[in-house]
């Protein structure tokens, strides 16, 4: 399947590059293998979707670059404009340094390109939306309500009920229905991006800090808008502790309000990027050994592949676990934000002056 995918990509990319291919002798610097650089390139975002390099041939899809500059306004063009053969050239007053696009005159430029990560995220979300709406349509026609569920319904149902019964209901109590669509969206948003990110040749979306920051900030605002006076009372005037302890507790409690979503951001980011780095490292080991000795490379490959497969399975597990942990912790934090309200019977038994 992977081979077919690569061939397919090769097919659609070759015409794009046919015109750019001038027979410039390739730099012999590639003889020196730098696994750290390769791995970092793989886990970072890019303006083109690179699949493989075969000799002089780079199988990659150029992606649209969208730039906004306060002085020049919007500019939209394909990232292949920066390449002329193997030379990297400036285009429309912008130039590419590494993965970043900067203005040649040094003014600030906002890069909102459809990069590799963005494109993959969109494709993954398209799959998610199509899948979920098709399932929803089945429920609307009564399939799964008055008859047994079929196909993808069976796959998604346990997941949805698991989130409902393990994350939403225990943490959010009677208000769970209000937050359930958010929790489901965030779970499947992370899950589909993690799983698609595991496909060979795909981008590392959930291991990108910007992606997790957005999810964390959304969670932060949802927590913020769920808070009640009881919650803030606990933060700024913790009841039942001496004054000097209060002075210590208040900043800690206040900071924890920001640390909670930050922890969500960092956990997801670190877990996903670590998984990709481990897989890439095991694959790189083959080439590191191969560079030392032809037979060492081939000899080590079965072991390396075995480890890679093992890590792959763990990564699939991690994708589910991280998606669930993010969802569950978001639910826990939201639940903490409004627990102990006056109409909450399970809340703290603090003396309430009426």
């Amino acid at each position: 399947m992977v081979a077919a995918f690569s061939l397919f990509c090769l097919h659609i990319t070759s015409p794009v590059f046919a015109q750019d291919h001038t027979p410039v002798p390739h730099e012999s610097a590639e003889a020196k293998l730098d696994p750290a650089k390769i791995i970092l390139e793989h886990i970072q975002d890019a303006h083109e979707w690179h699949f493989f390099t075969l000799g002089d041939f780079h199988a990659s899809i150029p992606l649209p670059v969208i730039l906004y500059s306060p002085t020049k306004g919007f500019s939209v063009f394909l990232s292949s404009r920066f390449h002329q053969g193997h030379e990297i050239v400036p285009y429309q007053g912008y130039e590419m340094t590494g993965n970043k696009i900067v203005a040649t005159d040094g003014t600030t430029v906002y890069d909102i390109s459809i990069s590799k990560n963005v494109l993959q995220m969109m494709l993954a979300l398209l799959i998610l939306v199509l899948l979920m709406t098709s399932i929803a349509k089945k429920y609307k026609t009564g399939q799964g309500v008055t008859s047994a569920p079929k196909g993808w319904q069976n796959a998604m149902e346990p997941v949805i009920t698991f989130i409902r019964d393990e994350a939403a209901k225990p943490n959010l109590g009677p208000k769970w229905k209000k937050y359930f669509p958010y929790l489901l969206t965030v779970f499947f948003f992370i899950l589909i991006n993690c799983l698609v990110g595991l496909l060979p040749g795909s981008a590392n979306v959930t291991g990108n800090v910007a992606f997790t920051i957005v999810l964390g900030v959304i969670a932060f605002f949802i927590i913020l808008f769920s808070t009640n006076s009881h919650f803030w009372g606990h933060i700024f005037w913790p009841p039942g502790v001496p004054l000097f302890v209060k002075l210590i507790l208040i900043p800690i409690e206040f900071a924890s309000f920001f640390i909670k979503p930050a922890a969500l951001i960092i956990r997801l980011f670190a877990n996903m990027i670590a998984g990709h780095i481990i897989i890439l490292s095991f694959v790189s080991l083959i080439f590191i050994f191969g560079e030392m000795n032809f037979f060492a490379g081939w000899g080590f490959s079965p072991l390396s592949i075995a480890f890679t497969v093992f890590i792959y399975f763990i990564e699939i597990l991690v994708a589910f676990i991280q998606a669930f942990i993010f969802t569950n912790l978001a639910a826990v934090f939201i639940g903490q934000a409004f627990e102990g309200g006056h109409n909450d019977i399970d809340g703290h038994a603090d003396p309430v002056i009426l």
Partner: protein
Amino acid sequence: MELLLPGIGILFWTLIAFGIVYYILKKFAWNAIIKGLDDRETNIADSIATAEKVKLEMAQLKSDNEALLVAAREERAIMLKQAKETKDKMIAQAKEEAKEQAAKIVADAQVTIQQQKMAALTDLKNQVGNLVIEISEKVLRKELNDRKEQENFIHQLANEVKLN
């Protein structure tokens, strides 16, 4: 390190994508799925409750049926017993009647026999009398052939007849 610096592009697109996906899924997927699951759960709960109720009803019905059956059996036994008693009684009565009838018949027969016997006896007596008369007549006729004797006899008879 570049790895830890969020790119504006991804921040921007992820935010927009999340918003759109949240909106679409909430409107077209989650509500329908949640409602479907809820409906099915209540459906199943109702079905189980109904099944339990029906089961109880069935058990009730069964015990009712058994009670009815027992009652029917008892009734049948009673009826059989009664029928037997009636039969015995009827047989006994019939026997009694038959006996009485027989006795009556026998008694009638005896009376008739007696009467017949008496009639026969009377008849016999008459016959014997006639025979005696006839024979006597014949005898007398023979003896009265001669005159003398006739006279004797008349005398004798005359003498016998007493004028009282």
